[in-house]
C-alpha cells in the first residue's frame, strides 16, 4: 500500500480482537438486595438467620427482581374489592425501607393530575407479580423530593412497555437534574443534611450559602457511626446464592 507521500508505509498489523467474556462479567456483578443486610443492634443473629430462611423460601416460589431507587416498576396485587380481583400499579421507586421480612418500597406516579404513592411490602403474599419496566439508578438513594418537583418528572405511562437491556452490562445511572416547584417545599432539600445531588437548584447564591451553615463536616469522620458490612455481605451472599 502506498501512502499520500508516495513512500511505502510500514506494515501495521491489524488490531487484536478484544474478547468480552459475557458469562464472567455476569458472575462478577452480584446484587444482594439491601433488606438482607441486618441492621446494627443487639439482637441475636439467630433471628436474622431464621428471617433469611423465610425470605429465601419466598423468593424460591415468587421472583423478586433486582431493582434500585429510581427504576420504574409495575406491581400486581390481589385485591378482594377490585372487579378482577387484581390491581396493577406502575410507578417509580422513590425509597426502599425496612429490613428482613418487613422490607417495603414506595412507588410514585401521577394519575390524572393527582400524585399517588403506594408503599408495598416485598414479601407480602398478596403480591402476584413485580415487573421491572426500566432498570436504572439515580444520583440519590431517596427520591422524596419528587413530591416538590414539577409533576412531569413523576408521570409515567401506565401501559409502558418494558425497556430491554443486556444482562451483563452495568446498571445505567440517570444523571437527571430535576427542576422544582417554587418554594415552600415539604422539606428544605437544599440543606446538606439531605445531601441531594439530583436537583437543579435555581435559588440565589445567598440562600445556598445560608443553607451550608447547617452542614456537619465532622459526620463523615465519625468512627462510631461506621458500619462495615463487607464480611456480613459475603456470608449472606453465599447463603442466599446457595438457597436459590
Amino acid at each position, binding site marked *: 500500500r502506498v501512502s499520500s507521500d508516495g513512500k511505502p508505509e510500514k506494515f501495521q498489523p491489524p488490531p487484536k480482537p478484544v474478547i468480552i467474556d459475557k458469562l464472567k462479567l455476569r458472575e462478577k456483578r452480584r446484587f444482594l438486595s439491601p433488606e438482607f443486610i441486618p441492621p446494627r*443492634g*443487639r439482637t*441475636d443473629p439467630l*433471628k436474622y438467620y431464621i428471617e433469611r430462611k423465610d425470605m429465601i423460601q*419466598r423468593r424460591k416460589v415468587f421472583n423478586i427482581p433486582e431493582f434500585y431507587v429510581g427504576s420504574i416498576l409495575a406491581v400486581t396485587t*390481589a385485591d378482594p374489592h377490585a372487579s378482577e380481583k387484581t390491581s396493577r400499579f406502575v410507578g417509580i421507586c422513590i425509597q426502599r425501607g425496612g429490613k*428482613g421480612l418487613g422490607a417495603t418500597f414506595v412507588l410514585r406516579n401521577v394519575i390524572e393530575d393527582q400524585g399517588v404513592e403506594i408503599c408495598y411490602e416485598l*414479601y407480602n*403474599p398478596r403480591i402476584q407479580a413485580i415487573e421491572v419496566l426500566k432498570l436504572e439508578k439515580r444520583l440519590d438513594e431517596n427520591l422524596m423530593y419528587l413530591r416538590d418537583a414539577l409533576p412531569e418528572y413523576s408521570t409515567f405511562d401506565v401501559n409502558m412497555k418494558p425497556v430491554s437491556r443486556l444482562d451483563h452490562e452495568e446498571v445505567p445511572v440517570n444523571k437527571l437534574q430535576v427542576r422544582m416547584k417554587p418554594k415552600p417545599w415539604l422539606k428544605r432539600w437544599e440543606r446538606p443534611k439531605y445531601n441531594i445531588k439530583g436537583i437543579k437548584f435555581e435559588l440565589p447564591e445567598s440562600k445556598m450559602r445560608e443553607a451550608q451553615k447547617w452542614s456537619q463536616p465532622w459526620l463523615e469522620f465519625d468512627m462510631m457511626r461506621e458500619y462495615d458490612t463487607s464480611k456480613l455481605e459475603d456470608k449472606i451472599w453465599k447463603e442466599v446464592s446457595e438457597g436459590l
Partner: protein
Amino acid sequence: MMPIWTKSGKRHSVTLLKVQDCHVLRYVSKEESGGKTSKLLVGGKNGSPFFRSESAMEIFKEAGVPRKQKVSTFNVTDDAIIKPGQFVDVTAKTIGKGFQGVMKRWGFKGQPASHGQTKTHRRPGAISTNKAAKVYRGKKMPGKMGNIYRTSYGLKVWRINTKHDIIYVNGSVPGHTNCLVKVRDSKLPTYKDCNKNPPFPTFFADGDEKLPEDLYDEEVFQFTDPSVTYA
C-alpha cells in the same frame, strides 16, 4: 418482632421467644405445697456457677442439671403442652426508664407552654383537696418507672420452630430484646376451655415420633405456598 401473614391476606406482628435450656428442677406434689394444684420449679437460661449462694446451688445439684440463671414456679396441671393456635400469657420485667416525671410515668397532661406560665410546664399541679387535709396513699407522683414484672394476656401462638426452639407469639411482649420471659397458658375466661384437652399427650424427648421442623397454625400463610388470591 417480625411480620406474619394469614391465608386471608391479613398481616400481624409477631414476637419471637426462644426456649433456652429449660429444665424441670423440682416437682412439688399437691399435698406438699398446700395449694390447689401441683407446682413445678423450672429453671431457664444457663448462667455462671460462681455468683450464687450455696443453698441455691443445692437445688441444682439434686436435679443433676447445669446451673440456671432464673428460677420461677409454675402452677401446673396434669397435661401441659405448647402448640400453635394456643393462647398464652407472657410475663417479663419491663424496660427500666429510671426516675421519670409525672407526664411520662402516669400520662398527666401538664400545663401549657406559654400564656404566662412561670416555671410550670410538666408538673403534677394539685395533689389533693382542701377537705382531705392529707395526701392519699398511692397518689400518682414522679418516681422510678419500669423494671417491674408485667404480663400481656391472651397472645396467640402462630408458629413453633422445633429445631431452634422458637415460639412465635402474636403482638408485643414486655421487656427489652434478649430479656428473660415467663410463658404460661392463658388464664383469661374466653380461653379457659382451650387448654383443657390437648390433642396428643405431652411429647417426651426419648419417644420415637419426630416432630417436623416447623409447626404452623392453620391460618398462617407458609412461604412454600403460592401467592394469595381472592378468586
